[in-house]
Each structure stands twice: as C-alpha cells, then as structure tokens.
C-alpha cells in the first residue's frame, strides 16, 4: 500500500456545542456565568465553561455533578437540536470555502488547499472562517489547520496553553505526525480500542504508530489498521477517488414535495436502509455521505457528512433527518415573503436555505470516497445472550440484531399502513384508564404527552405517580370510545351521584345484568380552571354476576362503560 500524504484540512470546532445549541434553542439562559450541563443516560455529555470551572467533567454521574455544584442547570441532551442549530454554522463556512463536510454537530471540516491559495495562507483562511461564523451565526468557533482530519481537529480542540484562544492553530505541512506524537490514544475517538491499548501499555499515539502495520492489522482488524494510519497523521485511504457508480446512489422522489420534517424523516429511514444495503451488498463502505436534495423550484442543496464506513442504517437515517431538519427549519426561520426573496437572499448569502413556500421534491444519498467494507465484526469476548434456559420459550435473541429485525418489520408495516398505524406505548400521567400510557408512532421520540418535559428528562422511563389514578391492576380492555350504559337500583330506577359524591341508591343492575359487588364513587374534578376542558365525573368499579369487572363513569347523569377487567 502506497503511503499517500494526508489531505491538508481546516477543522472548525465549536467548543461545548450541545450547550451552545441549548442556549440558541432557548432551553437555558444565555448568561455564561450560570453553570450548565447536558446529560445523556444520567452522565454529563457536555458542560459550559462556568460548570467546568467548578469541577464538572464529562461522564460524571448526575448526583456527583450536583453535589459538586448544587446550582448546576441540568438539561437533557437532544441530538436533533444540536444538528438543527449547527446548520447556520455550516452555511457560514460554506460561504467562505466550498466542499464543507460535517463530521458531527459541532465539528466541520473543509479542504485547505484551495481556500488557502485564495485568501493567502492557512492562518488567513482560518481567521476568515472564524470571522465569517461569528458574523453570520454569532457563534464562537476555533479553527485548526493540519494534514489529516485528526490532527486538524486536535489542533482546533487543544491549541496548547501558551496559544492565544482566538488565534487559529496551524500545524506546518508534514508536521502532523510530530504534532500527534505525544497525544494520548484516547484522541482516536475509539473508546474500546483506546481502553485496550492502555491496558497493553500503549499510551500515546506515537507508541501506537510505532507498532508494525501487519501486527496491528492482525490483532485489531481493519479498524485498528485505520486507527494506526490516523495516529501516523495519515488519512484513511479510499480505494478509489472516482465518481461512485449510479447504482450506488439511493434516491427517492416526493410527490407532493414535503415541507414537514417528520414526513421527510419517515422517507429518510427507508432511503437510509436502501443506501446501506446497496453499499454493503457490494462489499463497500464510504468515508463520506453526500445528502443531495432538490427543492420544488429546482434548487439543489447538498451537504457532506462524515461516515467513516462505520455508520449503521439507523445512524445514516439520523443524519439525513438532522440535515432535512436543518434545511426546513432554516427555511421557516428565513421565512421571506414571496416576491422579495431574490434581493434578500443575495444579501444574506443564505443560498443553501430554502424558502418556506417550497418543499423538498427529491432526495438522494450519494456515497463519497469508497472504501472496502470491513463490517461491524462482533467482538469475540462480548457475551451473547447467556444464562440458563428456563423453558422452551426462553432463549430469544436479545442482541441488537433482533432489535434491528423488529425495527425493519415495524417500519415495513408503517410503509404499508402509514406512519401513524404502528404505535408504541410510553408511561404517562393521567387519571383515566387509557391515560396511564400515551401512544406515540413507532420511530418517534418516546416522550410522554402529559408529563412536563422537565420531569420526564429528570427521571426518564420512571412511571409517574399521579394522584387520583385508577388503582392497579389496570383494566386489560380499554374502550377507545366509552359505551353508554344504564345502571339501575333494585327497583329499576336509574342510579345517580349527588354533589357530595354519594350514590342515590346502591347500583344493582348494569344493562339488566346483576351487579354482585361495586365500589365508588371516586369523584374526579379535572381542569376546573379551564371551562372548555373541565370535566366532572365519578368512577365506579363493578363486578357483575358473570365474575368480570367493569370500570364505569358517570358524568352529567349518564353512565358509561370505560373499560373491562377481562
């Protein structure tokens, strides 16, 4: 394999991007003196400079973080939000230098050679980019220039203590290997590999780069060999830098053009699976994913995302959704009235945004820089579903493959019946028999409808305690529309409930069937502050002669069967 020198790149990095995105979204105040931390799975994902100053670190547990800093503002992580607010930054970079690729929200890269010739040097280009982002999007970004993406990213992220914060770091041409030499192996952004290397006594990138290539490939596989190339300041080598053949491109046409993100995202899911199959079916992967869309007016929007040949179909779908979200949200924000847009657009340079009046007419996923597909090899030592079999019905696949299989089947049913036809239940708050869970379409975020987002983020998945809820066990059959019923006492008169929540007579018959036991009334006076939504009812549980139980509600003198305990 010939050792081709790495492409010289500019990396644009926004420090603490998830925090910045949360501020832009208005989820937290913009006051920088307030310590803010974003949590995912109860661990710190990102924190503001003020939080870092009081000792908050990445991966800290929430309890630990709050004990170090009781006034810490806790925010849930939202990858969609990160991607949505990064789009203006990418647009600002693109207005100064073409061919920008998004590595992940918060980090973008662009080839340095062309812009550096135009602006007169790497440092001048970097200053131009940072200035452009500050002017157009009002966001502070750091720029690093080096051979290869890894060195450029590290240059932007860790300029060194003596370096001025707002000056770009320029690693001289051919100096990437030396620049990377003393860095820890964790900088490779491969946690499992880094952990293993540390335990083998290999702590710096130069130690790792010094290992023989064949031994690294033999011990750590294709991914390890790629990591070693990165550690030496090289790029992962594409097999061919030619145009991908047309049958590798996954394409879909929207008729009518889509304006809403959720509709586009649903199509993106199927498209991503198609794209993934086309590539892996030929034993290929790609380093970059090109997302190309045409608006109904014929404008072309393109964006490159870093892929590294390692993204699953779902991860591709996420990136497509983020990108569409960015484009469509941008359109809504620009929101120029028709007739004025031509002059307005020329001024702001927002060529990549689309007008709110036209939607996306077609969408294509184009692989860029093809590499052999190394595959996601299952680890030798990771235990598959172990444990003793208890009965013939145990031993299901509990691994990701089963999840993906189920996801594919459910997505197919969504394609058959529409996205809202497949639902999944989320524990929610509410008093009624059907309100203890809310149903969300498959693939949507599992967010309860009635619990305030703050509470849900604090205790994800926890069943909320809701005063006045029907006690467990819950009815197994809940009517979507309650059925009208007649409840009479022993003398055939309709039973009522007084204003003081007592029955006028013990209920004896439900639609002519004898009631053998009953309990209630459980009065509920909901939303009395809102005349339109206010409801006053009383609920009863009754057991009829056949042994089954029913949940009844009386409202305005009429009886309804809400649910059956069957």
């Amino acid at each position: 394999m010939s050792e081709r020198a790495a492409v010289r790149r500019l990396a644009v990095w926004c420090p603490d991007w998830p925090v910045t995105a949360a501020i832009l979204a208005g989820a937290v105040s913009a006051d920088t003196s307030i310590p803010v931390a974003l949590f995912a799975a109860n661990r710190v994902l990102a924190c503001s400079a003020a939080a870092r100053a009081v000792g908050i670190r990445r991966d800290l547990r929430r309890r630990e973080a709050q004990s170090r800093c009781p006034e810490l503002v806790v925010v849930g992580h939202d990858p969609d939000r990160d991607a949505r607010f990064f789009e203006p930054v990418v647009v600002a970079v693109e207005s100064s230098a073409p061919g920008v690729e998004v590595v992940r929200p918060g980090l973008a890269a662009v080839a340095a050679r062309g812009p550096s010739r135009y602006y007169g040097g790497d440092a001048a280009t970097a200053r131009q980019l940072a200035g452009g982002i500050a002017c157009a999007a009002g966001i502070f970004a750091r720029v690093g220039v080096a051979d290869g993406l890894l060195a450029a990213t590290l240059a932007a992220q860790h300029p060194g203590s003596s370096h001025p914060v707002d000056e770009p770091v320029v690693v001289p041409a051919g100096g990437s290997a030396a620049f990377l030499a003393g860095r820890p192996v964790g900088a490779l952004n491969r946690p499992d590999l880094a952990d293993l290397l540390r335990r083998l006594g290999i702590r710096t990138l130069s130690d790792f780069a010094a290992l023989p290539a064949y031994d690294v490939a033999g011990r750590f596989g294709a991914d390890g060999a790629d990591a070693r190339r990165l550690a030496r300041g090289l790029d992962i080598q594409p097999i061919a830098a030619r145009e991908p053949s047309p049958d590798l491109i996954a394409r879909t046409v929207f008729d009518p053009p889509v304006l809403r993100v959720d509709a586009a995202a649903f199509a993106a899911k199927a498209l991503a699976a198609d794209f993934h199959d086309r590539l892996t079916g030929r034993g290929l992967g790609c380093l970059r994913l090109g997302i190309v869309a045409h608006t109904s007016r014929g404008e072309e929007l393109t964006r490159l995302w870093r892929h590294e040949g390692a993204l699953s179909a779902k991860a591709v779908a996420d990136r497509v959704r983020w990108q569409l979200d960015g484009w469509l949200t941008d359109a809504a924000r620009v929101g120029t009235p028709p007739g004025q847009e031509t002059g307005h657009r020329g001024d702001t340079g927002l060529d990549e945004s689309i007008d709110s009046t036209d939607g996306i007419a077609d969408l294509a996923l184009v692989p860029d820089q093809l590499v052999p597909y190394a595959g996601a090899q299952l680890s030798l030592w990771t235990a598959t579903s172990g444990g003793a079999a208890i009965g013939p019905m145990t031993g299901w696949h509990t691994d990701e493959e089963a999840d993906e299989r189920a996801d594919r089947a459910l997505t197919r049913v969504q394609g058959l019946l529409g996205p809202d036809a497949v639902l999944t239940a989320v524990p929610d708050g509410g008093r009624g028999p059907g309100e203890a869970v809310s149903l969300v379409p498959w693939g949507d975020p599992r967010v309860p409808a009635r619990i305030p987002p703050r509470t849900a983020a604090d205790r994800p998945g926890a069943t909320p305690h809701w005063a006045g809820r029907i006690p467990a066990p819950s009815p197994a059959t809940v009517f979507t529309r309650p059925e009208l019923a007649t409840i009479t006492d022993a003398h055939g008169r309709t039973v009522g409930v007084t204003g003081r929540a007592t029955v006028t007579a013990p209920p004896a018959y439900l639609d002519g069937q004898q009631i053998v036991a009953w309990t209630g009334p459980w009065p509920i006076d909901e939303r009395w502050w809102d005349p339109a939504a206010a409801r006053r009812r009383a609920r009863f549980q009754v057991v009829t002669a056949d042994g089954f139980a029913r949940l009844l509600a009386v409202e305005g003198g009429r009886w309804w069967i809400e649910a059956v305990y069957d």
Partner: protein
Amino acid sequence: MLPEVARLLPPTGVRRGSTIAVTGSTSLLLALLAGPSAAGAWCAVVGVPTLGAAAAAEAGVVIDRLALVPSPGRQWAETVAALVDGVDVVVARPPARLAAGLARRLAARVRDRGCVLVSAGSWDGAELTVSATGAQWHGVESGYGRLRSCRLDVRVVGRGSAARPRQGEMWLPAYDRPAVDLPIAQVPSSVELAPVAGTPIPVTELPPLEAVG
C-alpha cells in the same frame, strides 16, 4: 414463562414456530406474553385497539419492546405476515371471516420464521387453545374496596400429545408480583386522633429530620 401460566400448559410449553389461540380473557393473553417479553422478545399486537397498555406493563410485558397496530383494516394479513418476519411474538385478532387457506399459509410462515403467533380469538388448527371459561374478581364489596385480584378458570386444549384437555385455575395478578400502586387520593393525608376518655395518648418526641441523599 410465568410459573402460574406454565403450570397450566403441557410440559413441552409453547414451541417457537407454533400458533396458539387465547380466548375469553385479555389478561390471560397478557400473562402469556409477559414471560417471553421479559426474556427479551419483541411483541406486536395487531387489530386490538382496546388493549390496555397500562395493564400490559403491569402484567410484566416490557412496553419498550411492544408495538401496537390497532387498526390494520383490510391489510390485516399483509401486516401479520410482515410482523412475523421480524417480531418474536405476534398477537393478532383474526377478522370475523378468516379464510382457511390464509390461516394455513400464515401458520406455515410462522413455523418457517420460528416466531409465535398468538391469536386473540379462536383459530382453526391452533397447536394450543387456551381459553378462560370463567372469572371471579375479588377485592370489591358493596360500596367499598377496590379490585385486587382475579381468579381465572383456564382450559387448555392442544393437538397430538396435548389433546387431552387440561383444566385449572390461575390468579392474576400473580401473588409473587402483587400490584402495589396505591393512588394518593385513597390515602388520607393526615389522621386525626380522637382522645379516648381515660387513656391519655402518649406523646413521643420525634427526632429532628435529617437531610439524606
């Protein structure tokens, strides 16, 4: 498989690739799902818009891995066939008139894919038919109490070696997983103690509250 369900089934249990029918009780259906679901299986319920998802969660079904297709409409067969390909346990309420040929083809597909099709309603040619023949809810008296548990009379009829009907009863919710979710509204927030004549109530000094956690 929950022990109280397993007790009633034939010793071989429910094999992968089989079609079983559950009639008479939705709770019984959920109790059958709970075991595989807790063991990591994906479940899908087709054509049962009235299914109480809260009851499913209480029965032990992992609702993160439960998908609901409430109204498949005319594409019932296509929906079930698509789910059989990827979901481990598919619960489907058969339409009023299910062609025998279609039922056979679906059962063959289930056998081929190695999942379990549970029919919520009778199904000709089912390996096993589990039906609730009677129920008795307990916990409610005239005017007070709340529903606590239910005794179901269950009859299991199979094919082949399991052809001899088995009969038994089971309690839901099971005794080892009692339903404890008392509503706040039912619990008095403060209890007033009426002084009983002659016996002064001893007033004990409470220790000061400590901040914990």
